């Protein structure tokens, strides 16, 4: 390919030109894009950083929106970030964040530039420093030993009054605690302080997740923490907080009757809402509670069965799972009757979901819940005659 000429530099098309051009090309988009890529390949080789960064900018756009490979341009991105001009730097850094990965050969070359940029005394410095914490978790994933090195600083950051730093640090601990909860048990007092003091729901949700992992390890901790959690559950105005509290209680505080009862009350409120999101999450909350507190599901039996009819397939599936959780020796006949009726009225997919659930639940533990095999065999016959049934071969 020819090297970039003065013409290329002077008459280089901008990103805006490309976007406008694409909008006018309905049928010949790929030809247009090929031509643009050809231009970019020529332009990007220039030593003029303005031209180079514009070419890189166009390429980044094509990569992100039109799946065009840009891995061949990685060295040019590094050249752009070495420019003293912020406009070129930001194009280079965006290209790098979108396209570099572990196997990019030149990735080591950015560390030098990063170090220079992080130390530079420009007016953006204060924003740059705040970003440091977020990078830490990625480091920890690859180099777990690094946790020990940064630990002290991370813990200090838990006391930060800067909400962005606090959010990032709590996020890091949330991930770490889910992988190795015991190691972070000693930090419980810090998290407790945040649980009772913070007004920031994003941070509180993360802290609740942390306690969901820590509480099962230490009953004395659970005892102290359950009250503030119930407090939040009672007082918060944010539905996301309510749901997280419900989930935390139902997962890790199942022995605390009053907490569980409160969570069940809140779940019922969700179930009675018109908003399908809340209904879905209410059902989901019930399914988390079901293993240890089936009474909560049974209390809401009517809503669960009604939801089998909902027009949202996700809600139908959740309620089907809950119905199956309610099955026992005494009610299996009644429940199967209800379900087969629904199956007859349902579309192909849901009908087979219902039939599949009935079959797998009934044959669990070598047909533990079936007492009347005559009835079961006739049920099997009835199900196989249902028009949509695809389960014939299996049982």
């Amino acid at each position, binding site marked *: 390919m020819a090297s970039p000429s003065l013409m290329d530099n002077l008459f280089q098309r901008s990103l805006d030109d490309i976007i406008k051009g694409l909008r006018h090309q309905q049928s010949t988009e790929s030809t247009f894009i090929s031509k643009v890529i050809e231009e970019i390949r020529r332009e990007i080789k220039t030593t003029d950083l303005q031209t180079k960064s514009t070419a890189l900018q166009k390429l980044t756009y094509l990569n992100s929106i039109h799946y065009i490979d840009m891995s061949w341009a990685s060295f040019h991105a590094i050249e752009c970030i070495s420019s003293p001009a912020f406009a070129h730097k930001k194009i280079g850094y965006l290209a790098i964040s979108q396209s570099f990965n572990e196997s990019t050969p030149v990735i080591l070359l950015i560390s030098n530039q990063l170090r220079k940029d992080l130390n530079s005394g420009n*007016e953006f410095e204060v924003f740059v420093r705040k970003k440091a914490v977020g990078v830490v978790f990625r480091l920890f994933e690859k180099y777990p030993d690094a946790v020990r090195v940064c630990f002290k600083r991370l813990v200090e950051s838990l006391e930060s009054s800067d909400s962005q730093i606090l959010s990032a640090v709590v996020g890091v601990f949330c991930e770490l605690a889910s992988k190795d909860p015991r190691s972070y048990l000693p930090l419980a007092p810090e998290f407790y302080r945040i649980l009772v003091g913070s007004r920031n729901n994003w941070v509180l949700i993360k802290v609740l997740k942390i306690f969901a992992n820590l509480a099962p390890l230490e009953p004395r901790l659970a005892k102290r923490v359950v009250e503030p959690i119930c407090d939040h559950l009672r007082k918060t105005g944010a539905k996301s907080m309510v749901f997280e509290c419900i989930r935390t209680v139902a997962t890790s505080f199942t022995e605390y009757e009053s907490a569980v009862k409160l969570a069940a009350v809140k779940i019922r409120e969700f179930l009675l809402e018109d908003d399908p999101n809340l209904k879905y999450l209410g059902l989901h909350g019930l399914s988390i509670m079901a293993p240890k507190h089936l009474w909560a599901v049974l209390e809401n039996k009517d809503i669960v069965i009604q939801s089998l009819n909902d027009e*949202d397939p996700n809600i139908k599936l959740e309620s089907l799972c809950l119905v199956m959780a309610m099955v026992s020796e005494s009610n299996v006949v009644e429940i199967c009757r209800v379900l087969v009726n629904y199956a007859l009225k349902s579309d192909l997919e849901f009908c087979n979901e219902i039939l599949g659930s009935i079959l797998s639940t009934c044959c669990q533990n070598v047909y533990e819940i079936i007492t009347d095999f005559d009835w079961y065999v006739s049920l099997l016959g009835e199900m196989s005659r249902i028009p949509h049934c695809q389960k014939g071969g299996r049982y």
Partner: protein
Amino acid sequence: MGIRFILMVNKQGQTRLAQYYEWLTLEERRALEGEIVRKCLARNDQQCSFVEHRNYKIVYRRYASLFFLVGVDNDENELAILEFIHLLVETMDRHFGNVCELDIMFHLEKAHFMLEEMVMNGCIVETSKANILSPIQLMDKTS
């Protein structure tokens, strides 16, 4: 990790913004975006905004002609993510003034910078519109 990716897609299924927090090849991205967009666009307004896909979840919401789709880990709080999407839209609205699809198309970098202020490595770190927009405004002043 929390958030795995954020997509903005129009009603025709064309991607307008794609931000990934885990590395995927171009082929994987194309396939993923195709599958998810098909699933979400097939749903109507009366259905809930959460869809399960493979071993994670998609939380999505439509604003005018654009769908905002966020792929999250299974233990992520769906309602909080819906609030995050709303915050993102409000932030872009404040900056662009009545934001529309064209604003995002012609100012994709700005949208990326806003997102970068809000989400780091898949974790939501900033939820104050003023704090998100101040570096962007600073950049606008100097360029």
